[in-house]
């Protein structure tokens, strides 16, 4: 990770200067906030580093207006602490990727959360990061400072560039400031836990719960796993809100779901622990395992699990089945012996292509989150394959958008979202 050059701007004006300089010299810039997600989509190493860590701090927080503005590299922890003080939250439950890569927790920044559209378990009920960003300031790849959106919760003025920034991985513009919609923290919570369900039965149960007026805020299923020695499969439904409401909904939901399984309500503390562990994927093995993230229509999630069983995958389902986390042994399945690196890569590549195909066939997509660097390249969609596959019209739109915001490709070169379609 040797960068030839490193910029560490302290102000938005210095970010502008750095980008303008890179543009003039046609040099690539790797945009980095906390760096917690760097292993997920790695820019080419020839790029100079644009380290935003000094572009930090909450600049405006107005709890009454449900609006918070912070500089892009403000640590998520700092924002969450400020919100907690006023009993508020980022409702989409962003999480820290650091631990997933075996790194320390706490480096994740707001800018990183937005750039990667990181949304946790509550995404099921209350939307993703992209649904909660209201406005931003940034420097585009044209070396120009721009802003988009606004600082109020209801705004339809002009194109929704804030949503475009969400999930753009720093390839269109360098975010310098972000305004978020925040929401009150639920005053009470409980989780209904059902044990011993098959993946398919669990997904049916979660679907049934979401078809009832119980306002389930999150629904997850952890199958039986040898790796973590969980005693048996666990299906969890979270209820949040004001105490009397949570109590009522809890009773009614348990009653309504009784024919599908006997559940029990756990206390707030245990409920909190269950959902915290979903953020760090404690149920999945890390060492020696690739991590895939597969997004499909929720009712079809179990079919991903069924197919991946042949790869010895360990699975965690979130979003009522719509999000499948799969930890898959780095070594090809059912192959006890050591193999040459090349053979391992071939097997992994076939498996990788297979996982992408399954996701696509079910109406979703798959992203490789964690892989050893040596294996990673072979697991990414091959260029030829990427060029031929997917929706050509969509790919062309992506390439033109990239060119519109970053005509010389100086922002995060090597990160190619069009190639993942």
């Amino acid at each position, binding site marked *: 990770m040797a960068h030839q050059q490193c910029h560490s701007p302290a102000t938005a004006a210095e970010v502008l200067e750095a980008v303008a300089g890179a543009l003039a010299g046609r040099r690539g810039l790797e945009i980095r906030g906390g760096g917690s997600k760097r292993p997920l989509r790695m820019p080419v190493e020839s790029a100079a580093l644009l380290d935003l860590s000094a572009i930090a701090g909450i600049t405006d927080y107005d709890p009454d207006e449900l609006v918070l503005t912070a500089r892009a590299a403000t640590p998520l922890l700092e924002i969450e602490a400020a919100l907690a003080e006023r009993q508020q939250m980022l409702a989409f439950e962003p999480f820290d990727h650091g631990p997933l890569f075996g790194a320390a927790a706490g480096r994740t920044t707001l800018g990183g959360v937005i750039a990667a559209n990181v949304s946790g378990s509550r995404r099921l009920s209350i939307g993703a990061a992209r649904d909660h960003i209201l406005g931003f300031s940034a420097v585009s790849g044209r070396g120009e400072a721009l802003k988009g959106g606004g600082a109020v919760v*209801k705004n*339809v003025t002009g194109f929704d560039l804030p*949503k475009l920034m969400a999930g753009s991985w720093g390839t269109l513009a360098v975010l310098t400031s972000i305004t978020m919609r925040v929401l009150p923290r639920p*005053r009470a919570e409980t989780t209904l836990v059902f044990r011993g369900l098959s993946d398919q039965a669990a997904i049916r149960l979660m679907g049934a719960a979401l078809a009832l007026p119980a306002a389930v805020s999150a629904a997850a299923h952890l199958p039986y796993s040898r790796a973590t020695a969980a005693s048996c499969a666990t299906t969890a439904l979270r209820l949040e809100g004001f105490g009397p409401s949570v109590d009522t909904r809890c009773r009614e939901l348990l009653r309504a779901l009784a024919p599908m399984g006997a559940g029990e309500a756990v206390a707030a503390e245990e409920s909190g622990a269950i959902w915290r562990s979903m953020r760090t994927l404690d149920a999945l093995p890390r060492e020696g395992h690739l991590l895939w993230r597969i997004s499909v229509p929720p009712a079809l999630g179990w079919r991903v699990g069924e197919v991946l069983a042949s790869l010895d995958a360990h699975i965690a389902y979130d979003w009522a089945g719509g999000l499948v986390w799969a930890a898959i042994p780095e070594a090809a399945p059912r192959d006890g012996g050591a193999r040459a690196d090349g053979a391992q890569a071939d097997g992994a590549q076939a498996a990788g292509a297979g996982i992408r195909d399954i996701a696509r066939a079910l109406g979703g997509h798959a992203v490789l989150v964690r892989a050893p660097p040596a294996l990673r390249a072979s697991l990414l969609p091959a260029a030829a394959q990427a060029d031929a596959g997917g929706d050509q019209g969509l790919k062309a739109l992506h390439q033109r958008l990239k060119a519109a915001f970053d005509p010389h490709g100086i922002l995060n070169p090597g990160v190619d979202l069009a190639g993942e379609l």
Partner: protein
Amino acid sequence: MNRRIDGFTRAAQRMSVKMPVLDARTLASRARIAAAMRDIVPGEGVIDQPEELAPYESDALTAYAQRPLLVVLPENTAQIAAILRWCNEQGVRVVPRGAGTSLSGGALPAEDGIVLGLSRLRRILEIDYDNRIAVVQPGVTNLAVSQAVAARGFYYAPDPSSQIACTIGGNVAENSGGVHCLKYGMTAHNVLGLKMVLMSGEVVELGGKALDAPGYDLLGLAVGSEGLLGVVSEATLRLLVKPQAAQAVLLGFAEVESAARCVAEVIAHGIIPAGMEMMDRPAIHAAEDFLSVGYPREVDALLIVEVDGPQQECRHLMTMVTEIAVRNGAATVRVSQSEDERLRFWAGRKAAFPAIGRISPDYYCIDGTIPRRCLPEMLRRMSGMAVHHGLRVANVFHAGDGNLHPLILYDANVPGELDRAEAFAADILRTCVAMGGVLTGEHGVGVEKRDLMGEMFTDVDLAHQERVKWVFDPAMLLNPGKVFPNLHRCAELGRMHVHQGRLPFPDIPRF
């Protein structure tokens, strides 16, 4: 432009917005274009007779009107694609249109362009209860989606006030909100996927049934793009379970400040009401004179707060809300005791526009958002502006999210009043931006606020947005003259003009 259009002169005479320079070649080729369109859409799908074009000359912002070259009414995605491909090749402008209920002139035709009406694409293609979604064509009305899934206890959350008429295609284009969007989100938060036809005729699928999609958030860009990026031919909508119960309370306050404090405190207590509306004294009196729903006349501000969920939750939240209101000096506290009473509370608010229409020959409806805390100051400044411009104003307000709808009362038959009303409106919107708010909370920019975009965005900001337009529609043929100011800046503004109390859609609620 101010040109006279045979048969439909009233609104056209008032039209002052500058539109792109007409393409003489297209105007001269009308018959040839009509023939080409008939090849694509056989039968009754092409309208070219002047009297039949009349209903398409404006949307609900009737101040702006002009006759389109032709109206084409395709029946399926393939026809939409063929129409757009042909128009793109021939350089013909296209204005997409749903039900035509836009309040910002989003569907104002181009004289040298065709109107692409989506009203015949009105099938609900799929209801997938397992994934809690509905796939619908763009001409399906907003309310029809909720009705189709009501028997299973579901509904589609965004509820713009025109929901009995407005269509999903139009909702997507405008990112429509509604009274309940504080809690349940705008259209953008409730659409998971779109099939969209580009001006080139290419069909792209954005998002789908999964909760996220790879690549850039083109879905997010498309929603609220006011018909400038593509034509929606299918939408995948998120369905929610209907809350078990809903309850509303009327809260009257002697001062606007106390009402504003009450709103802030409700939110500070962790309550996001299903709806939270405010009316000022002129609006209260107009509504009460019109419908006699029992609003208190002696207060300066009236709040309607609605909570929903299980009975126990409604009861609990209602107790909290009324306690907060009393603490903030509410003079009136009336909790709805029945579904009938709850609907009556809303009736006055929903009838605010026609109620104003009764006491003034014409009015403008403005749509801007401010930080909520600025409300008392905004109303004070508006009183000053009213004196300055010599016109009255009444206010209805989505109090929960700071979305203002001032209604400026004027008489178009009194020389100069229309101009004064437009100047008043521009003052209000500029003040919204100066207070940290925005030009439009839910009605869209359209042609109406196009020339004020510079108040909120720099040229660089706008240039980045315009390049997005170029990405999707390089020839700039789709919905020309909307959202982005022309090279010639024109400070002329228009609002939802209502002449002699006649609303463009007199039978649908407006709020």
